[in-house]
């Protein structure tokens, strides 16, 4: 089931004009920032389908940039996100694409700063609800509606157990988990949806586990 809460239907409270193209877009931007772990210095924002055709009219552009600045869907500052981005030293570029994606409202945000880069693909499935469909080339399905951690690691035996053990030690319950890899024996990704927000120290401990290359999270 894609929609689980009545507030997915009666909600969100948001700045107009479009739940999918404005509120959903802001949410994708915000989750992308969360996954990156900090505000990026630059962002290349690729738009597909209906997003590419109508992004200016719907404020999709200001909403995504607002999300990257950590604004929520109801934050009035979304309207001035472009000016705010300049002040916050975030440069951005919008690239409407002709290619068709599976879902008509898709965006891929490639962002970075002096320390790193990340690519996050998100889709806006209606009524402000979103899914993250790809991170750094890994296919996944993440709603952003629950706290989650993403762990990039070497594809070795024991990695998954070690991370699960670490979460168990901190009394963190796993609600849903997915693992995927680009190629056997190379890099793999764990996507773990959990019941509560993850504290910094848990994240740090996971990053100390051997063969773990990167850890990021989405808190609610």
């Amino acid at each position: 089931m894609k929609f689980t809460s009545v507030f997915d239907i009666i909600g969100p409270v948001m700045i107009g004009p479009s739940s999918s193209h404005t509120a959903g877009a802001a949410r994708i931007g915000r989750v992308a920032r969360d996954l990156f772990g900090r505000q990026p210095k630059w962002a290349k924002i690729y738009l597909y389908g209906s997003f590419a055709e109508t992004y200016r009219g719907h404020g999709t552009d200001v909403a995504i940039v607002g999300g990257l600045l950590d604004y929520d869907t109801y934050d009035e500052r979304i309207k001035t996100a472009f000016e705010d981005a300049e002040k916050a030293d975030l440069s951005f570029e919008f690239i409407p694409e002709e290619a068709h994606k599976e879902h008509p409202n898709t965006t891929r945000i490639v962002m970075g700063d002096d320390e790193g880069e990340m690519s996050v693909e998100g889709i806006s499935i209606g009524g402000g609800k979103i899914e993250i469909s790809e991170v750094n080339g890994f296919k996944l399905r993440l709603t952003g509606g629950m706290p989650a951690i993403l762990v990039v690691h070497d594809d070795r035996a024991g990695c998954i157990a070690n991370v699960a053990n670490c979460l168990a030690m901190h009394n963190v319950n796993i609600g849903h988990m997915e693992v995927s890899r680009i190629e056997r024996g190379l890099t793999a990704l764990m996507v773990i949806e959990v019941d509560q927000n993850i504290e910094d120290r848990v994240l740090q401990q996971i990053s100390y586990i051997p063969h773990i290359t990167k850890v990021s999270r989405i808190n609610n």
Partner: protein
Amino acid sequence: MDVLFQNVRELVERAEQEGKLISEIMIEQEIAITGRSREEIMKQMDRNLTVMEEAVERGLQGVQSVTGLTGGDAVLLQKYIASGKSLAGDLLLDAVSKAVATNEVNAAMGTICATPTAGSAGVVPGTLFAIQHKLNPTREQMINFLFTSGAFGFVVANNASISGAAGGCQAEVGSAAGMAAAAIVEMAGGTPQQCAEGFAITLKNMLGLVCDPVAGLVEVPCVKRNAMGASNAIVAADMALAGITSRIPCDEVIGAMYRIGESMNPDLKETARGGLAATPTGKALAAKIFGGAVVQGQ
């Protein structure tokens, strides 16, 4: 996951067997799924209701969108109602004007509550704040109106779509109007089955409605579609309360809506390439708004 209903049939059956309102089943499911307390859930819906009230209030004072394409119609309608010349009746036009007020605020990038989407955010509050004067509900009953709307929207969102880009305007204003009709029936004292009939009758009359916004903006024809969605909902609710039933069961109407959306040409699904967006005036407006940078595909 403890889902209490996956379709309208299960929702109605559960409500009738347990002698409960549909709004109550929705609240119970929300508690079961999220683990949050009833108090917390009621409080959040109360806040959403307040946002809706404030949006209508603001719209009735008169707003204009940045492009100037929409704004001010809610005020015109209220003046017309006050003149005593209304043909359709004061309640119906009051609902229409409040639906328009909400969507005018939305188009002006004001704060609204999506129900189920922003483009269709006028229908549910528009009808609620109009029938309020006739039925004199308590605050709790007004909050329940939103849960009943939400229950039907929940079924549509999971079994079909509430996105104009995926299913056309029938998925947005069509769903919103059906949701409103069901909630009106419950508030007026109808049975859960009559709520489903109200939903079905409404959506049947909005099947095939395309999403063709001029210049890709949630303005033309979205604002007026909310107006008609609100009037459709009230008339269908009255039909259901009169004892009229839908020959095609509610879930099958929702299924039909989904399949119609799937077969709809992408030009007619929120791409601003077809329908009203592709008329000479629609294209001229787009060119004017974007300073000659005409929206693609025309």
